[in-house]
């Protein structure tokens, strides 16, 4: 979405360093994420792209030995500030994980959990509506509308991942973080999810970590390339794939390492 021809910046990270104990995992990351665009983070295993993603909704808090330095500004607000409420933040910034992880509850309960704890529905009807809309947006409604009260874990892998996406969008987050959402899925399910991502970017800003360069090229408008904890290069996907500035980026994209 453009405002006066200038792309709006949704997330602005400044000098982000991450440490696991004594080991530094990310070095001085400065990356701007544009609103209502898909940004892909690529790079070889262990390069810190997932770590960076998890900084954006402070999921690294869960890890005792992990420390984050620097500023990550979302809506003019530094989320690493002490006054930031993690629960509120995560309501605004949803996340989809590498392995589908639906709650071992019914499909309906999986979706309604977020809206329930955030008090988003006043009545059963409202909740039904949220569940239906979320499932529709995740392109899962047609497949599960007759079995909403069956366990979510009984679905196929691809369906489970779309259920997780539906769960993430049920609380209407501004940003959706996706950590290799297709790595556990077959090509058909992957294609469905990619289609979905394209659809979702109308309402949400999406950041996706992926191992598949082809996927990054297909779904994203912007790409950031990580290597050994550093952000080597970022820019529009077109530019990164066709005309990278850095040699390491070029080597990675052409498959010389990684």
């Amino acid at each position, binding site marked *: 979405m453009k405002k006066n021809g200038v792309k709006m910046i949704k997330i602005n990270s400044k000098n982000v360093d991450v440490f696991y104990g004594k080991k530094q995992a990310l070095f001085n990351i400065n990356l701007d994420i544009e609103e209502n665009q898909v940004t892909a983070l690529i790079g070889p295993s262990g390069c810190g792209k997932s770590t960076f993603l998890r900084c954006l*909704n402070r999921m690294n808090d869960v890890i005792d030995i992990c420390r984050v330095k620097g500023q990550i500004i979302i809506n003019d607000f530094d989320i690493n500030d002490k006054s930031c409420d993690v629960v509120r933040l995560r309501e605004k910034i*949803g996340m989809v*994980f590498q392995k589908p992880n639906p*709650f071992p509850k019914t499909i309906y309960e999986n979706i309604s*959990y977020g809206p329930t*704890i955030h008090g988003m529905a006043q009545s059963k009807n409202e909740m039904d509506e949220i569940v239906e809309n979320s499932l529709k947006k995740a392109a899962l409604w047609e497949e599960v509308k007759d079995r909403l009260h069956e366990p979510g874990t009984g679905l196929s892998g691809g369906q*489970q991942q779309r259920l997780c996406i539906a769960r*993430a969008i049920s609380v209407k987050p501004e940003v959706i973080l996706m950590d290799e959402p297709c790595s556990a899925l077959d090509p058909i399910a992957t294609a469905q999810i990619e289609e979905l991502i394209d659809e979702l970017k109308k309402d949400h800003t999406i950041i996706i970590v992926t191992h598949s360069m082809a996927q990054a090229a297909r779904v994203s408008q912007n790409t950031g390339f990580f290597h050994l904890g550093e952000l080597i290069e970022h820019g529009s996907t077109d530019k990164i794939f066709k005309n990278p500035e850095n040699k390491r980026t070029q080597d990675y994209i052409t498959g010389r390492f990684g």
Partner: protein
Amino acid sequence: MNKNKEKLLNSRYRAEKRFQFYGKSAIFLALLFLTIFIFKIFSTGYTAFQKTWLIVPVTFDAETMYLDENPSKEDLEDADYFDLALQTMFNLDKSASEKQQNDLKRMVSYFFEREIKRELLNDPSLIGKTKDVYLTASDDLDQVFKGNYPRDLPEDQRRVTDYQLKIFDQLVEQGRIESKFNLSFFTYPDSREAELAGIASSFMGSIFSILVCLVIAFPVAVLAAIYLEEFAPKNRFTDFIEVNINNLAAVPSIVFGLLGLGILLAVFQLPRSTPLVGGITLSLMTLPTIIIACRASLKAVPPSIREAALAMGASKMQTTMHHTVPLSMPGTLSGTIIGLAQALGETAPLILIGMVAFVNTIPGSPLDPAASLPVQIYIWAESAERGFVEKVSACIMVLLGFLIIMNLFAQIIRHKFEKKWS
């Protein structure tokens, strides 16, 4: 080269075969011991579930009972049945000498008076009439009838006299001896007389103890486990606590008994010999078991579920209470039941807090003195009478049955509520 490889391969196969053989032998040995153990208990114990009765004609003579005409219910309650009961037994052999009369009296339990009284209270119209009444046979005759008693010993070496045997054999011939299911084993409290001893007191004592233990140990242990596993910072202090919880699980149970004796009885002055004190003592023992089981099953909940909930904006507390704890409950519950089953079989601490006292009343609450099943086994095993030998085995059977049911329950809970996660 090839030959060497062949040799190596063969020796590897042989090693596996040997290992399988050792494993099978170990299982066989374990099963063998179990079979011997169970066979021994059943073969000595099953007769305890039968009870021998003498069927004796009782003439409810108002005069012998010192009753007036048209007695009221109270009169019947207060009447003297002892002479009537004695007379009844003496009537079995009218020509008996005084010594023989004494023998006759000792052919039945000392409850014979009450058994006759109960018959009349049930049907007051029996006054002046004669009716066959079932009287509990004495322990020795009970054993004779069950074939557990060596009849061919010289008379001075056995507790049954020749005269008693003669009368008994006459009664058998007349069909006046009957063996029936021993209901009183389950409804009577302990007694010094083997034929009247039952497990009602110890059974209720065990149930009350276990309930007290559950009510105290379960909430404390679950809260401790949840806090330690989900909330507590991981540092030296919590490590120290963890090590000590594991140590607590390994403390010999008698030490907990001493603790109960020294603190609960001596300092807090709680009533001695009661399931309340027993239950509190047992709960100290069960606490670490439940904590360990609960922590293990909390650990087994995949982190992806926690992450999913946290990423949805659930607080730590919500994540724990909505997702982690419900998912860990099957493991926690089955751990709890196994802990309780251990507590149920515990003897030593209960002896120390006085639950070994002879209790011939059935407890109505955890504050009444009571025995417990394993202690009852211990008490009976110390008694000399032949009748208690089978009772020990029978009581073991009841205890084992109880334990099997509890373990079965633990299995069912685990299977029924275990949820599969991706």
